[in-house]
């Protein structure tokens, strides 16, 4: 069966919010909330209310990165110092804990940040080819609802969009 991408552009967030709310309450039987993607010019944390809690895995990356940075940082320093044992200095031990703690801390943050970045790039699906169905108005001031639908649902969804003062509807066939 043919599948379609549908993009409806709304002039303000409240209309889009209401439209998704209708989908959530099964106004159109068979259309799942999971098929809905909201694209917006600004961040709308309150969208979770209608879209439901969708997970973000970034904090897990952060945790792994930080723990890795801290432990690998300390081990790296300690091994380097132990293999450079000609170097006792200032009456201090060959492996001095205070300075290693400082540097492990920096490594914790550095790797935490780098892993967070990786998590963000993967989680947000950046660095990929953008879907062609995109309107430049979204980066200006309009809110878009993008859906992946089977052919039979297209007309009811369009009707729902119009009911909520949609400005523009674009559609295309999924290849």
């Amino acid at each position, binding site marked *: 069966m043919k599948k379609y991408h549908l993009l409806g552009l709304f002039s303000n967030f409240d209309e889009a919010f209401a439209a998704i709310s209708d989908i959530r309450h099964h106004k159109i039987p068979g259309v799942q909330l999971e098929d809905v*993607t909201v694209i917006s010019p600004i961040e709308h944390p309150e969208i979770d209310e209608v879209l439901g809690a*969708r997970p973000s895995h970034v904090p897990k990356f*952060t945790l792994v990165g930080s723990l890795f940075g801290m432990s690998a940082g300390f081990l790296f320093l300690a091994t380097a110092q132990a293999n450079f044992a000609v170097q006792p*200095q200032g009456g201090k031990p060959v492996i001095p804990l205070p300075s290693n703690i400082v540097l492990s801390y920096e490594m914790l943050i550095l790797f935490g940040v*780098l892993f967070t970045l990786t998590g963000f790039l993967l989680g947000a699906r*950046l660095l990929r080819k*953008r879907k062609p169905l995109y309107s430049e108005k979204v*980066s200006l001031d309009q809110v878009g609802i993008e859906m992946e639908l089977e052919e039979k649902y297209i007309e009811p969804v369009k009707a729902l969009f119009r009911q909520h003062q949609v400005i523009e509807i674009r559609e295309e066939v999924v290849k």
Partner: protein
Amino acid sequence: MQHKDINEDIRWAQINKDVLRSMENPRKAYWISVGICLALLSLAVIAEIYQYNVGLGPTNLNWPHMWGLYIATFIFWIGMSHSGTLLSAILHIIHADWRKPIYRFAEAMTTFTLMTAGLFPIIHLGRVWNMYWVLPYYSDRGIWPNFRSPLVWDAFAISTYLTSSALFLFIGMIPDLAICRDNTRGWKKKLYTVLSLGWRGDDRQWRNFRKTYLIMACFLIPLAVSVHSIVSSDFAMSIMPGWHVTTFPPYFVAGALYSGCAGIITLFILLRYFFRFEQYMTLPILEKTCKLTFAIAMVWTYLNLIEYSSVWYGHDTVAKELLIDKFTGPYSPYFWAMNILGSVLPFTLAFEKLRRHIPTMFAVSILLNVGMWLERWMIVSPTLAMSYEPFTHTVMWASWVQWFIVIGSFGWFGLLFLVFVKIFPSVSMYEVKEMIFHRRHLANKDIAAVMHRRSSDPQPSEGH
């Protein structure tokens, strides 16, 4: 008189237009500024080439005065870099939305001041060509840098801070780069297409973006504190009177935030004037920044007085002699200038009339930073002049080589900043929109009640 931080009725298309306008068609004033910066930078280049060939002798550094203006200016620039973190990360976490129109250039300032600061420890080396020996890389001969040295901590801390703050700046800019991508043509469109990483603003991206940005902010705050604590360790970890001070880490952090805030005021006024950003960089926001600066100035003053009094009432005779020498000795004019500029001048920020007078604030913010530069110099030089060994007590005045490089660093920073404001949006467009959106909804209590709940909160009656 304007009381609102921002005009909530401003059209979103207008925001895009105003900010994108600032990025095109440089005017005459821009090219003149670039020229001045290049001229300053060339002074530093000349001095550095001379110093590279001859050695550090012509700088007038000598054996008690192994460090001089280079290290003082290094701390100064590192201090400036704390502005972006404070304004952006801390205010982000405490949900102070007035940061939104002005944080972008503050973060850019962080990145560029770090790029300036990082040059100084390199320039000041006796054998610059071997500077990479400080980095921990594997060598066949089993030689490693000395991880005990605060200078190596500096290298770690500054590279971590530079990486993190540049990423923080970049990640916060991705939605804006997408706006640029959608509104430009030609090579610029290609550039922004690459830089925006395929951002389209869907809910998955925003959700991950929100988490990422918050986590980065949470990392940056302790990182910024640790960076300047580590810079202060260059002194606090030593054994010298006037350097070996327990309160140095908080003192340095306070001083850093102080000079950073003053730097923000300077650039705020310049951007507001040259890019006609009166709609976004409004007087109430300037006032808030000034109040913040005043508060930090008082913290700095307090820590400064603590340092004096703990030395004065302590039993460290050498440190006390040094303090008396600071008060009355050859460096005393600069010492008093630093105290007056750093502790007395900020009281101008306490008066609303003065806070709203832009030329006054411009002059004050620059003078505050002059005071903070003097502070750093007054940390470095008097200790070297008056330490334990009386035979080595001597005063050093920097030669033109040091001054040229110090002055040139301002040209280098200015150049980086000027390039930035023409390539990247210096006001965050999407966040100004957010600010307006949320303020308008807050004005309407009914909508606010719905809007400001999270999905995890108990649901109200489902009828909507």
